[in-house]
């Protein structure tokens, strides 16, 4: 069955085969919250190296890669069903691209798709402020604030693909891209 795609269709279809691939395995050592920070720091360290010729460019690249990776991996760790988290990342045509794949349950999937529906017709900056006001009067988590920050403050391009798998499980693949500073160290 074809996956249901939200956001940029072309981004969802792009191949990241020549990038770097990491798998976080939910094994006997358990996958914990702190691993999202460790993994995103690692990706930022590796990917920002090519910008080390300019301090400003390096700081910007390192931060943007780290922030984007951290938000996506935090979401994968937080909302996943037991199983692997597959991460692909690379620099392509002046942008950092990252794709994170994990499985989620049906309830998470429909809640998330509702949020993405709302996103399609609205300005992310406005939606971000609205969501912040809503969060201030409730304690509910999983508000999509991270994604709204990426779209609004980081000008990220994003795509989400939902694909039904066996049972109630759904494979969620999130792809995101942010522009990088000019490379000083090709």
């Amino acid at each position, binding site marked *: 069955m074809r996956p249901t795609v939200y956001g940029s269709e072309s981004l969802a279809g792009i191949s990241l085969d020549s990038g770097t691939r990491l798998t976080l395995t939910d094994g006997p050592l358990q996958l914990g919250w702190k691993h*999202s920070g460790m993994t995103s720091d690692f990706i930022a360290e590796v990917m920002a190296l090519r910008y080390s010729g300019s301090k400003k460019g390096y700081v910007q690249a390192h931060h943007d890669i780290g922030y984007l990776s951290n938000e996506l991996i*935090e979401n994968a760790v937080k909302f996943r069903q037991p199983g692997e988290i597959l991460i692909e990342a690379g620099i392509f045509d002046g942008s950092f691209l990252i794709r994170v794949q994990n499985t989620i349950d049906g309830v998470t999937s429909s809640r998330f798709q509702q949020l993405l529906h709302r996103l399609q017709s609205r300005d992310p900056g406005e939606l971000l402020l609205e969501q912040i006001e809503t969060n201030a009067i409730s*304690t509910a988590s999983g508000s999509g604030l991270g994604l709204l920050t990426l779209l609004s403050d980081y000008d990220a391009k994003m795509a989400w693909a939902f694909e039904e798998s066996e049972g109630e499980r759904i494979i969620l693949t999130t792809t995101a891209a942010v522009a990088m500073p000019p490379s000083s160290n090709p």
Partner: protein
Amino acid sequence: MEISDENFRVWAEQNEVYFDGVFRLAGPDAYAPIYSLITGLLHEGHKQVTFNLTGLEFLNSSGINLLAKLTIEARKMGDLLLVVKGTHQYPWQAKSLPNLKKLHPLLDLRLA
């Protein structure tokens, strides 16, 4: 008054709250003690409260939500001036702190 772990430290000195390090806590529940600490300070009757973020290297989106909630709390208190000191040294601050000003136009945002 101080809350810290191996990655971050937050503490208050009179009417100024300092944030230092990398904040990557898991959500509103994990940020709740910090929220309580600072809300307490906001209600102590100061004319001005300053959030000093110049040492705040990294903040995840749940942390940004914390700052936003505190800004809204300060907004509710009409006679309190909230000053937010930030730095261009850490790129997230120039990107995300202006949102606080949109939430609370009287907030004094100082990005150096």
